[in-house]
């Protein structure tokens, strides 16, 4: 099985606390994967470490068996909505156009084809009429669709989405999932950090249960059940907790 997303003994610390500990997995392509776990469990950190935004303490994490610098063009990252300033003076179309910036090189300018692609992406997410709107005027659901359009315009093989459904109305959520399922049918792989447990079985083919450690991962029908969920959302076993945080402190020289 050719893994599209692969990690080996990944350890990531945030200052003196461990956020990811000895995480290893291998995910095949063409799936809609949910990353689930309690708050502060390292889910966002997993995406950030994969994209090279955060440097892991040890271990490795790769897409398509290659380091991130070589496969940037194939990955679309949809960060959490609050990571962006929505008062920024920019229109919806311009935000979507940003998805193409990675392909333009240092001195390139957006061309007609890029603009057409951006408009098309807006149509696909149902935001065509908002193209020239200032982004501060958009609702939560519309902002999320905008981010999705920006991801589409990159024409990626892999989507990494961090909590795309927080603060989004149900209709938008359903529509976005439908769009993503269509992408999956075209052979793309999609990873979503998800916080809403009741919808996991409906949305995702595979699920990764993360609570600093990777508790389990695999097909949802097998993995997503009571015992694993108890381990994910229950209290961390105390010995592990202490040992892991001791490890983080030692590595950063605080103890």
């Amino acid at each position, binding site marked *: 099985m050719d893994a599209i997303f692969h990690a080996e003994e990944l350890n990531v610390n945030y200052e003196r606390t461990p956020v990811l500990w000895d995480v290893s997995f291998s995910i095949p392509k063409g799936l809609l994967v949910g990353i689930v776990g309690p708050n502060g469990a390292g889910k966002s950190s997993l995406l950030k470490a994969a994209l090279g935004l955060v440097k892991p303490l040890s271990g490795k994490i790769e897409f398509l068996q290659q380091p991130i610098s070589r496969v940037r063009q194939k990955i679309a990252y949809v960060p959490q909505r609050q990571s962006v300033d929505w008062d920024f003076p920019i229109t919806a179309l311009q935000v979507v156009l940003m998805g193409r910036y990675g392909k333009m090189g*240092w001195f390139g300018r957006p061309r007609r084809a890029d603009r057409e692609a951006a408009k098309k992406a807006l149509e696909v997410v149902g935001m065509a009429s908002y193209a020239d709107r200032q982004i501060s005027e958009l609702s939560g659901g519309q902002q999320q669709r905008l981010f999705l359009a920006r991801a589409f315009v990159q024409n990626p093989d892999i989507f990494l989405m961090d909590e795309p459904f927080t603060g989004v109305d149900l209709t938008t959520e359903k529509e976005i999932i439908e769009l993503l399922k269509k992408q999956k049918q075209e052979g793309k792989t999609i990873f979503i950090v998800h916080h809403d447990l009741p919808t996991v079985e409906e949305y995702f083919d595979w699920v990764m249960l993360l609570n600093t450690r990777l508790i389990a991962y695999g097909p949802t029908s097998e993995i997503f059940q009571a015992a694993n969920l108890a381990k994910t959302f229950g209290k961390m076993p105390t010995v592990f907790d202490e040992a892991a945080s001791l490890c983080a402190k030692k590595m950063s020289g605080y103890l």
Partner: protein
Amino acid sequence: MTPYWDCNFFTFFIVMIQRAFFFLTGHAEALASDEIQIGVLSAVAISCGMIGPFLVLNRMTMLANSLSHTILLGISLAALAAGLLWGGEWFDITTLLAGSFIAALLTAFCTETLTRFFRLQEDASIGLVFTGLFALGITIVTLYLRDVHLGVEAVMGNADALQLSDIRLPALLIGINGVILFVFFKQFQLASFDRSLAQTLGIPVGVFRYLLLFLTAATCIGAFRAVGVILVLSLLTGPYLIARLFCCRLTALLVWTPVVGVASVCIGVALSRHLLNVHGLALSTGGIVTGTIALIYIFVKIIFHFRKKWQRALFSV
């Protein structure tokens, strides 16, 4: 005798337009001191207005404030080096630009080291760096550069003693800022809006941050003679805040911010002339321009506030 010797606020503009007309139709006359003031200050306002939006959007304005203080150290080091190494002029353009480069590098490097390596919170890092480096700058100036007047004028500038030659540096900076912002517009825009996406797309955000700081330092030095290091901050921040009240597209803002800056300059200089002629008060024109920016902000804010009220009233009717 200046052609504006008898003007009040309104007749100032009339005389100015008249003279512009004469100038354009070939009656070359020497420029009056007020016009030189407007010219130089406008050049400063335009160069500041081009990078101001990016500074505000990247939350780097206090870093720019920090920079405007550490420039003293940069310039004094450059002046010392120029004096020691090649016996150069204290304040020619190369020394100043070198000084701004040193200042930008020092400030950015020290602040980053404190935040990343020493894990100190950002506000304290900025504060520690600029007070420390400024104190160092003053010490160097006092010990080695006593004859060179880097004192009060550096801090406050003197907009009332400008020559036409003072327009050279700000004009050069309009050029430099313009070219760099035009070529790298999309990188600056993306890095300011969504830093993590910029990084994932492979844009080196750190490089652009340093570049922005260097442009700021150079612009500050260009503004230094005219308005001084503290007031340059008002030209970097104020016009953007005003323009943002009525404009909401970055590309348009890059035009409107300098325009607002130039408008404040014209109004400020006219006001200064008015106060001199009508009330006999000889006041600092640089300070008046800054005050004008504040007044314009308040004025525009009030207009928009009432506009909203009237719109709501109209809708309910």
